């Protein structure tokens, strides 16, 4: 097992970081918080760099790189709390298309002409075995009914991959964003726009059925899709936490109290050492999980659940200690730290929090009581 980046991967990371330093400064993030800006310009830069195409196969206009490279971009976007449709488009929608064995709209995704997302959450619970949207057969297609919450970019995405339940088992279909009734949720982090989608008898023609309900292996394929989306949230969230960590270390070096930098106080040192551990721990588990996705390794379900649980621990600790160690300044709207704090808090809970994922691990270790959600 080799958990370190190759030289090419390091180069990609550095290039991405440099681009985002210019294209996604804190002032852009602030403009979203203050309702004065939009992510459009950044999205243009990202499309020009072909990032949407990075992990897609060459036959669909992609660059043919793998999930590790996609993860590197996800990390860099998370580091700066970037508002961008890339995460949902690539790690949710495209993952759903490809994980379904389809190639629907991948060309448009690669070229950046279409954005997308994944709809699964039932009142804030992401359980692929219990999707909240029902699909009834109608001709050769389906008709959808139900309500999904916490859909990332749900009110702006061009395409929504919907995990649906039927009497024959679950499946995945694609619905145009224009046919969905979406309500933007007012949440703590405007760079992670979430929406509630209502499906009130939306018709899905056969060419938009990505994974036919009842197809052999459908449940496993959906589990894999959700795992891929979950790992992306992990990488993004841990990167955000690392940014909090680095900001806090820097602050501890320059902020003086009692005539010395607060970072020279042992209690501060020890907390920062513990924060460092939390970030490294979640990062190492996150990349291990990403590799199991990249290589389709059978350890994937446990690895992903463990990684999300660790990311939740990390987000809880870093959002708390990052804020506490900054003292009053971090508590003010004017200081940029809270963008990261709120992004960490959001990443902690999207696609399930720590206790949910630990309960999945318990079931997979064979330790949970019967009837446990997997």
């Amino acid at each position, binding site marked *: 097992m080799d958990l370190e980046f190759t030289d090419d991967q390091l180069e990609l990371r550095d290039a991405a970081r440099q681009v985002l330093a210019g294209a996604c400064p804190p002032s852009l993030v602030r403009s979203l918080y203050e309702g004065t800006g939009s992510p459009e310009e950044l999205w243009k830069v990202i499309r020009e760099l072909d990032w949407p195409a990075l992990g897609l196969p060459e036959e669909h206009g992609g660059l043919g790189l793998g999930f590790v490279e996609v993860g590197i971009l996800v990390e860099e976007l998370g580091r700066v709390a970037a508002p961008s449709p890339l995460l949902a488009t690539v790690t949710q929608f495209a993952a759903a298309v490809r994980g379904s064995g389809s190639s629907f709209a991948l060309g448009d995704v690669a070229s950046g002409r279409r954005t997308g997302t994944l709809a699964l959450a039932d*009142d804030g619970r992401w359980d692929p075995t219990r999707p909240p949207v029902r699909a009834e057969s109608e001709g050769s297609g389906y008709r959808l009914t139900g309500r999904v919450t916490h859909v990332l970019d749900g009110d702006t995405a061009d395409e929504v991959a919907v995990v649906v339940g039927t009497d024959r088992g679950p499946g995945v279909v694609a619905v145009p964003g224009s046919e969905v009734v979406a309500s933007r949720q007012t949440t703590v982090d405007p760079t992670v726009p979430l929406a509630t989608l209502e499906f009130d008898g939306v018709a899905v023609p056969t060419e938009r059925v990505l994974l036919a309900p009842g197809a052999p292996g459908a449940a496993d394929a959906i589990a894999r899709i959700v795992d891929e989306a979950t790992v992306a949230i992990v990488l993004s969230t841990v990167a955000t936490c690392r940014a909090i960590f680095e900001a806090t270390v820097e602050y501890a070096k320059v902020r003086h109290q009692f005539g010395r930098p607060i970072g020279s106080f042992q209690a501060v040192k020890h907390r920062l050492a513990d924060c460092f551990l939390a970030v490294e721990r979640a990062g190492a588990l996150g990349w291990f999980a990403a590799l199991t996705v990249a290589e389709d390794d059978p350890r994937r379900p446990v690895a992903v659940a463990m990684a999300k649980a660790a990311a939740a621990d990390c987000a809880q600790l870093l959002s708390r200690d990052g804020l506490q160690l900054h003292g009053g300044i971090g508590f003010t709207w004017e200081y940029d730290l809270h963008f990261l704090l709120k992004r960490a808090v959001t990443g902690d809970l999207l696609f399930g929090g720590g*206790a949910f994922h630990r309960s999945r691990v318990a079931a997979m270790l064979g330790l949970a009581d019967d009837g446990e959600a997997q």
Partner: protein
Amino acid sequence: MRLRFDDSVEATRQEFREWLAANRPSVEEMAADPAVSTGHAPDWARRWTRAMFDAGWLVPGWPPELGGRGAGPIETFVVLEELAAAHVPRTTNVQGLGIVAPSIVDYGTPEQVRDHALPILRGELTACLGMSEPDAGSDLASLSTRAVLEGDEDTGEWVIDGQKVWTSGANYADFCFLFCRTEPDEPKHRGISILLVPMDAPGITVRPLPEIVHPDEPDLNEVFLDGVRVPAASLVGRRGDGWAMANGSLAHERGMVWVSAVMGLEEALGSLVAGAPAHLAAMGPHERALAVDQIVQIAIDTQAARCLGQRGFAKLARGGSAPEQALMKLYASDCRQRVARIAADVQGADSLELGSVPNDGHQAVDEPRGTWMEQWFHSFANTISAGTSEIQRNIVAERVLGLPRG
């Protein structure tokens, strides 16, 4: 040791409970015009403070002329307990009633009591507390806002220059209880004095600091003082005694500060337990057990905070010392932070929603309010201000446990 108070105490409780029911501000009027800053006293709050003052319930331990009835500490405790149970704030101007007025009563001149303390107690004026500075947060004794006396101690004027920060309520308060350096040549703990400064004095600029939650209702402020002039008679107590008085002020009602913290915690726990079942029902059995256990743990902490507070209180009420009281700020503010985060976690991703809990005005502005996630962010005001939790641990270790300074 025993579980119950004397009958006479329970009689006082009953008397206050009846008076409260007849005189309290209504839920509707509080919700219609909630305080938006700790320096802000809406009309209902001014009437309410005056009613408490007139009836002798405002500071029960004080004599009637100061809004009390010469009651003992246990009676005062019972009054606070009943206010909390009725969801009525004792005051919206927390620093004014809790610290500024008592300090003026303790250290001020009769004129200062007449013109500053009594108006606070009658709900006519609000006050803020000017302590922290950009480079003097946890290390308060390093403050550098300077006041120079021009003229003599009777007829002269103090000229004040400097900057305060994190001044709660300064955007609404009528005057400031201002800590300044007046004796620059003395050791830093001995060079600080306290002045009473009208907030509308020329040279004062207040810049509110929106917070990371509820940024539309800022309570914290920067206060810039540029050649501000106040009469020599604005000095509270003796020159250079400010640090000693600060320790006195902050320790004021030290046997009682835990009460509002614990009751806030109990209220939060009550909301959590009441709201949890709907969320718990959606969980699988394993996740549910973990969520329940988090609730149980904070319930135990809440009960412990109550017991610890009452144990220390009993010792102080007998004139003894109560080392465990030094833990109360640390513990209560930590618990208040955790109860909010636990409650948010129980809600799952739904906790990310903002603004869904209106301000019903029943809490002081400096208490965490709003959704659970908003409360969690807000709770850092308590773990950071008036001595961070880190400083509190040092204090416990050095002053209570007798460990040597580093």
